[in-house]
């Protein structure tokens, strides 16, 4: 579904991402792994249209060429993004955040369905629809952020370090919800430092090193590699 090649990002002279090639299909969870500064966020932001990338990149979502769209049109085309550090409207209520998530969608019947889906995924939000998001805990805010992204009915969902700052229990809960999202048909591409936990729910992974994708494959093949385990999964 999401088909990317030749994607490069530079900040001045510094090349943060070089000729990235990747694919994400409906229904799968793909983890993007890499050390600090490897270029993971740059990749996510480039896909969402939030940073400029070198011209000539190929980014297609199904039949749509995303490189021709303005950032605000990319959501409507089916690619939703939760950036690093959330992406919620802090002073607005949970309900308003979710309503805004569906801004690019126009059909009201599906609005109801999606709203129900989000509340089924994150039942904690049900009691807090009127609460202002900035007064919620980090984990709850992350649920709102993902809920907001889901309200646009995305084909592919991009998540940049969704478990950042969450307790192990809250992370597990979040990852379980992410798996459910994929099982319901949305493809998920997520950046994660917490490789061990995220691999438990992921299908495939890409490894970024200094802006280049150096390895990709089924998560099992990553788990078989002792060097990788030591470097990214912590311990052995």
């Amino acid at each position, binding site marked *: 579904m999401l088909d990317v090649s030749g994607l490069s990002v530079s900040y001045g002279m510094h090349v943060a991402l070089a000729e990235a090639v990747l694919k994400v299909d409906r229904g799968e969870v793909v983890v993007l792994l890499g050390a600090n500064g490897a270029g993971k966020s740059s990749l996510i932001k480039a896909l969402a249209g939030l940073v400029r990338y070198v011209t000539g990149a190929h980014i297609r979502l199904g039949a749509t060429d995303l490189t021709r769209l303005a950032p*605000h049109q990319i959501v409507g085309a089916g690619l*939703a*993004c939760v950036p690093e550090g959330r992406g919620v409207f802090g002073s607005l209520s949970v309900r308003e955040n979710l*309503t*805004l998530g569906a*801004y690019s969608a126009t059909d009201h019947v599906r609005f109801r369905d999606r709203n129900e889906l989000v509340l089924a995924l994150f039942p904690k939000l049900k009691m807090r629809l009127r609460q202002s998001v900035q007064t919620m805990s980090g984990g709850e805010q992350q649920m709102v952020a993902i809920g*907001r*992204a889901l309200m646009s009915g995305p084909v592919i969902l991009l998540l940049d370090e969704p478990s950042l700052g969450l307790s192990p229990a809250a992370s597990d809960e979040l990852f379980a919800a992410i798996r459910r999202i994929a099982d319901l048909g949305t493809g998920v591409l997520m950046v994660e430092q917490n490789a061990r936990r995220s691999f438990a729910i992921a299908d495939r992974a890409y490894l970024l090193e200094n802006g280049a994708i150096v390895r990709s494959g089924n998560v099992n093949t990553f788990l078989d590699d002792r060097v990788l385990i030591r470097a990214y999964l912590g311990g052995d």
Partner: protein
Amino acid sequence: MELMFAGLALGGLYALLAMGLTLQYGVARILNLAYGIFVIAAAFGAYVAKVQLGISPIVALLFSLPLGFGLGWALYSLLLLPLVRRTRAGPQLDIDSLLATFGLMFVIEGALLWIFGGNFYSYSYLSHPVYIAGTPVEANRLVVILVALALTLLLHVGMNRTRLGLAVRAVEVDPATAVLAGIDARTISALVFGVGGAVVAVSGVIISMFLPFSVSMATEFLMKALLVVVMGGLGSISGCLLAGMTLGFGETIVARFIDPGLTLAVNFGLFIVVLSVRPAGIFGRTV
């Protein structure tokens, strides 16, 4: 009683003036320095319509809405949007847009001075008294109060009860996240400049109905609007109403009982009191 209506009219006017500015400044993040001169231009427009063309100010009021909207929209799309593009909405935009709107202010001011000179203008319209509970109130004051309240209500409902209003608030609180929700901040900004323009036009027509005005008052109106915006909390419609009324009543009472020369002192006195109690304004969010 009479004092109350005078305060309400002035307060309503200040509230109205501030609403257009709070939207433009709060949502598009551009401080429009030409705001005050547009108000005066609209007042002159109503004057010409009434005195030379014999068009009733009420009719002028109706025409001023779409005209003001169009001008506001054009101001953003033609003059400011290129700056937004060039600076990529970065810090340079603040300086560039200040210079651009400051320049525009001088152009319009020059044109108005050339046509009308620096004198005070006024005309008489609905100045006969209407008796409310035995108190005489000039009818034009009632028009001012009603229009100000109606527009406040309209904007409040529009901002808080509609999908588009929600999108406007989203851009106001977080432009970066708004993009992720599929909202085009530039379209919303142009819209908001249009609404601000409509509010400016209505304010100008209203002012011409009950106050003598001159080109030199543009800065005063800009200042007062800015004062009310900051007091009410950036982007808050109900904040504008409350702060505008506070200022209007404060001025009226001081001018009546102490000395009309003190109004400016009262303005800033109230300003300082409000902000020392609530630094983000009456309805301001602490960011």
